């Protein structure tokens, strides 16, 4: 009897644990399904339709995707999105790592500096962009006033394509460096100092210790930040929408602002959904490739 009851009891305890686990994960799964997966499936369906902007639509197969291929503004927006991602991701991470290394050392008043760097995270994207406008307004912005004050020519931050793009990148870096710094700082504080000391005893320089010990050990933080930064960059909207509106001449148009323009201004929601799908595929492919190629991802989650 005893031999039979014990495994049954174990099974019953195991079943209860499974039920509890499902119970705990259920609210998240429900929210994920309701607010992410269902709208996603809906968006896929809309991307195959010619919509009237008010819920009605006619199935048109791959027409919207075919239109994308022949749309120069789509390609410009795709190029801008990729360029923006390529510039902001390494710079955000590099600046974040630099700041974290500084603030992890015996810098005086480091708590104040940490707070200053983290502060932009507490500000909403739209508010950040409005601050950006005050700084980069080419007629009366702070930056051009400063340039004029020191005798330099004013820059066309809003009417020059390259300068407008640069202004978006600079505000993004200001906004995002604090977040990168915070994650790296947490990573640095979790590193064992023995390894650094051992490397020091072996006669390594500061740069060698950084390159060969610290950065590899920060692999899980870097993996997380790389994925997050790339996804944030792919999805950039509020800064561009408020600061430049995608202009001048689409020089700062990115995929999300172009999707918004089509979905909510032109009311061509099928086409906007197709642009959204392209964005989704980019993000999924990048994450999958990075996941498979990363040796330092945090497998324990």
């Amino acid at each position, binding site marked *: 009897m005893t031999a039979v009851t014990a495994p049954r009891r174990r099974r019953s305890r195991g079943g209860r644990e499974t039920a509890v686990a499902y119970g705990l994960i259920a609210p998240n799964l429900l929210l994920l399904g309701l607010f992410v997966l269902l709208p996603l499936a809906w968006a896929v369906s809309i991307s195959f339709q010619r919509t*009237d*902007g*008010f*819920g*009605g639509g006619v199935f048109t197969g791959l027409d919207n995707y075919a239109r994308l291929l022949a749309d120069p*503004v789509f390609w410009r927006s795709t190029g801008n999105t990729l360029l923006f991602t390529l510039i902001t991701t390494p710079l955000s991470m590099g600046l974040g790592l630099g700041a974290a290394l500084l603030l992890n050392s015996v810098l005086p008043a480091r708590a104040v500096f940490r707070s200053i760097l983290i502060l932009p995270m507490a500000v909403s994207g739209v508010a950040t962009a409005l601050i950006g*406008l005050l700084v980069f*307004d*080419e*007629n*009366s912005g702070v930056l051009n006033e400063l340039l*004029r004050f020191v005798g330099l020519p*004013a820059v*066309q931050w*809003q*009417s020059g394509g390259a300068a407008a793009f640069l202004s978006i990148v600079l505000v993004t870096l200001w906004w995002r460096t604090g977040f990168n710094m915070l994650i790296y700082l947490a990573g640095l504080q979790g590193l064992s*100092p*023995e390894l650094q*000391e051992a490397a020091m005893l072996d006669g390594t320089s500061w740069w060698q210790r950084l390159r060969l010990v610290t950065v590899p050990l920060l692999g899980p933080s870097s993996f997380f930040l790389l994925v997050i930064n790339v996804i944030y960059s792919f999805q950039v909207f509020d800064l561009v929408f*408020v*600061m*430049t*509106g*995608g*202009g*001048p*001449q689409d020089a700062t148009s990115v995929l999300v602002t172009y999707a918004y*323009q089509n979905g*909510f*201004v*032109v*009311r*061509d929601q099928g086409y906007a959904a197709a642009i959204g799908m392209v964005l989704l595929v980019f993000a999924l492919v990048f994450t999958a490739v990075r996941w498979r190629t990363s040796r330092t991802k945090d497998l324990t989650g």
Partner: protein
Amino acid sequence: MRGRSPALPARGRNTDAMEPTRRQLIGGAGVLAAPLALAGCGFIPTGASPSADAQTLTFTTWGTSAELTGFRRAIASFQKARAGATVELNAVPYEQMFTNIDAQIQAGNPPDVFRVPYYTFGAYAGQGQLLDLSPHLSSGFADRFTPQAWAAVQSGGKPYGVPHHTDTSVVFVNRRALDDAGVGAVPQTADDAWTWSQFRAVAQRLRRAQPDRKYPFAVNWQGNGVTRWLSWLFQADGRFLNETLTASAIDSRAARTAVDFTRSFFPDRLVPANDSVKSTTYAADTWYDQTTAMVFSGAFAIPDADSALKFDWTATPAPRNVRAGGDFGGNALVATKGAEGKAELIAAFFEHVTQESQMRDFCERASLLPTRADLVEGGIEFAVRPELTPVLLGQARAVRAEDSAQVASPDMSKIISVLQDGLEQAFVGGRGVDATVQALASGIDRAVGA
């Protein structure tokens, strides 16, 4: 070597099952707050769901405080005049207005009545989302409005709304900047408005008199305001759509003249480089900070300008070319198709709010222009800067019905996008006049499905 202590498990915490833990409290609060948060985001309509009560209308609008006061006064007056009737006003920020309305239409619970700009009206009327008011309005109702106002609420020859008020652009001028440049008194009536060449001469005089970083003027064609570029087209006696609104009519000499004239503002440095149609800097901001000496703007801006500006300013009519002309700005009131069961109540409400006394009160308080023919002929006086009223009313009279009727096109949203792309290329992209007009013509044809 510095050691780190492993995180200690929390001890001594009250784990009494009968008392809620902090986590449970936060979770509970989250559950309770979720519907509020969702409602705040516009996911759950708050006051805008169609009311089952046949004597209650739900009315969604945005507005300045003066406009909302005007609406509340009009509603109170209507409720007093019609015992038992109730109008539930749902005021929302402009930025959320039409994404909310569209979502509510898609979800099948739009408000009974909402306010809509004339250039957006066609998108709703043309897609069959609005109530055809022709069987419900009293005979002769149309006669109270100016022809240009009535034309702006027609779709397929039927009225799908009532023109509640209008606005159009004149030129606000910084008096001192013009004096410093030696420009004398500015015209006060549409008849003696500057011609294009006179306007250009004034601008060039300002250009010479002002320092390099200041500019003669700015034009308010940013964002959806790109329809204000059409003023120049109308002044050159051009059209952008044919009479049946089914094909482009912009490939014309008038359009070339308008593109050529407005395009020259940029290389001649008559406007700031960031005054293009896709700029995020509004023209008025450059006038407020005295980067520009003149700005194209409407009556709605008078109260803010009066309270905020420290310099002496006045207004002059928009310049004319072949004829005077202007954009037909402003907003209509419309009813959604699903509110047909309340059509009689809706028609009564629309008739009430467009009565002479109601429209006068609304327009004078909110500094907007009337759409009633009797009031346009000089029957109102703005509460703020009343001496500017004749300038604005004169400009409103210059708008023609054939101009405003084009803006009611059901494809206006797409046409706006075409205008933005085409004019941006001309103004800051260096595209030539002919290429611009051809791009506008083919884009408008695609937009209307011609």
